[in-house]
């Protein structure tokens, strides 16, 4: 578990830097984070069928659910960078440890659900932790100005790099801690409820959550832009024509 958590922490730290330090290279997006976590935590060939599809499922759901089309100042504080890593890590680690207690015919759907819910909760809790970090940054900025007025440029630079390191460490510790908490919570809740956890139930919840994700996607990509509905209809019709053409050709 230590080796896996160190990988989760490293990835979480890098993604937190991407989101908060200003890199903004898109690696802090839930889909990317979840897929990278899935690739890093691959539990081996015995889980090959689902091990990589679970992070993809978690990443897709979280990407749609955590995309807010508001301007940043109007958004609720959500830590979307580490949410994907935490969600995918919880799902993969639970798959490995808890699957023998919950042998479902629908296999990975349950773990996609567990990972998605863990990611959603982690995004909210991670967002709460931004406020103390901002307060700390304010103190550092004031100290930085004092150092500059004293002519101590090297000390100012060191102070700034410490701020960068703080972002990394915060992302790393939060990712590892939330993953442990998520796996522990799942281990406490799921095995005693094994009788209740059935394939059709997991499938129903998955379908509803997928619908909510697409509803959120509709809000972001179609409702918010001008003439969005017109362009979405054109995209749907174009693809429908292609699919019907292929369907006709194959039959």
């Amino acid at each position: 578990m230590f080796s896996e958590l160190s990988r989760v922490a490293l990835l979480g730290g890098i993604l937190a830097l991407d989101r908060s330090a200003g890199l903004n290279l898109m690696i802090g997006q839930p889909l990317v984070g979840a897929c990278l976590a899935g690739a890093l935590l691959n539990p081996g060939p015995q889980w090959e069928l689902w091990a990589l599809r679970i992070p993809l499922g978690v990443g897709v759901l979280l990407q749609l659910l955590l995309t807010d089309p508001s301007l940043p100042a109007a958004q609720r504080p959500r830590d979307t960078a580490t949410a994907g890593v935490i969600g995918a890590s919880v799902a993969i680690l639970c798959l490995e440890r808890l699957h023998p207690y919950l042998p479902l015919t629908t296999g990975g759907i349950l773990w996609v659900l567990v990972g998605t819910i863990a990611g959603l909760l982690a995004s909210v809790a991670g967002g709460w932790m931004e406020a103390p970090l901002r307060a700390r940054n304010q103190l550092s900025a004031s100290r930085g100005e004092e150092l500059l007025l004293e002519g101590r440029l090297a000390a100012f630079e060191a102070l700034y790099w410490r701020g960068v390191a703080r972002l990394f460490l915060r992302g790393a510790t939060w990712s590892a801690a939330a993953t442990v908490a998520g796996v522990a919570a799942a281990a406490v809740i799921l095995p005693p409820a094994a009788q209740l956890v059935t394939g059709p139930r997991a499938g129903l919840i998955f379908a509803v959550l997928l619908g909510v994700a697409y509803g959120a996607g509709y809000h972001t990509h179609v409702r918010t832009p001008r003439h969005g509905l017109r362009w979405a209809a054109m995209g749907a019709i174009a693809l429908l024509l292609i699919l019907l053409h292929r369907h006709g050709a194959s039959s």
Partner: protein
Amino acid sequence: MIGPEPTSAPSPEAARGLRGIDLARVASRSFYIQALFSAERQQGSGFAFALLPVIRRLYSGAAERGRALARNMGFFGTHPVLAGYVLGLTARLEERRARGAPIDDAQIEQAKRSLASPLAALGDPLFWVTLRPLAGLAGILGMALLPLGDSIGPDLRVLVCPLLSLLTYNAVALRFRIVAVPRGYASADEPGKLLRSLRLAELKRFFERVSAFAFGSLAVLTLWPMTESADPAGLGPAHTASVLAPFALGWIGAAVGLRRWPGRNVELALAAALVALILSTRV
């Protein structure tokens, strides 16, 4: 033009101009511009940190360098991808000032704000509201479009989908970041012309349409397999309706809920999962 190039010969100490490598260093540091983000100064500390190679080049004494950086450490807020244009412009003005041009603090501050505010106003809707969601959608579309391959082998989509996202976003954003500082430096006297040449509003409109078009395609790609799912009991349309109903209810619920409570995606998703769990135990 703010502070024309000085006509009198500068002193040997102040004659050092900025080199390409100094601007490249500023550009590389601009990737960390938000590390000490705070409500009071926003990216002010990061702006000073990014400008440090320029100030080191232009001034010699520690006290002089410190003062030059401190005056650039006040409130500063713009879009992080586009901050390089303001850094380039400021570098040019600081260079002229160091060489003896009559430029005061207020003029530099005024020039910074005149570029930073419109860049924020145009950059946020382009990058945060339009391009970033589109890049995420490109990755999801990759999952729907790429063949599954061997059903028991490794699923390569786990690498291809994030790669598609990264490429979609960075093909646009990284280009801006790389050219921003030199272009801001070169266009310091014509910030209005620089702003117009970026065509940010046009780009936003274009990506909005691509994004909506892609979402329409994704919806069809998702719904098509659902209508063709196995029907062992031979129920026909009733089977299709039962497969689509939970998905459609979730979609409609979220679309209505987000209109009423914008930004509450997480709460709506958790509430929907809870309702579905309760319903599933009763059906």
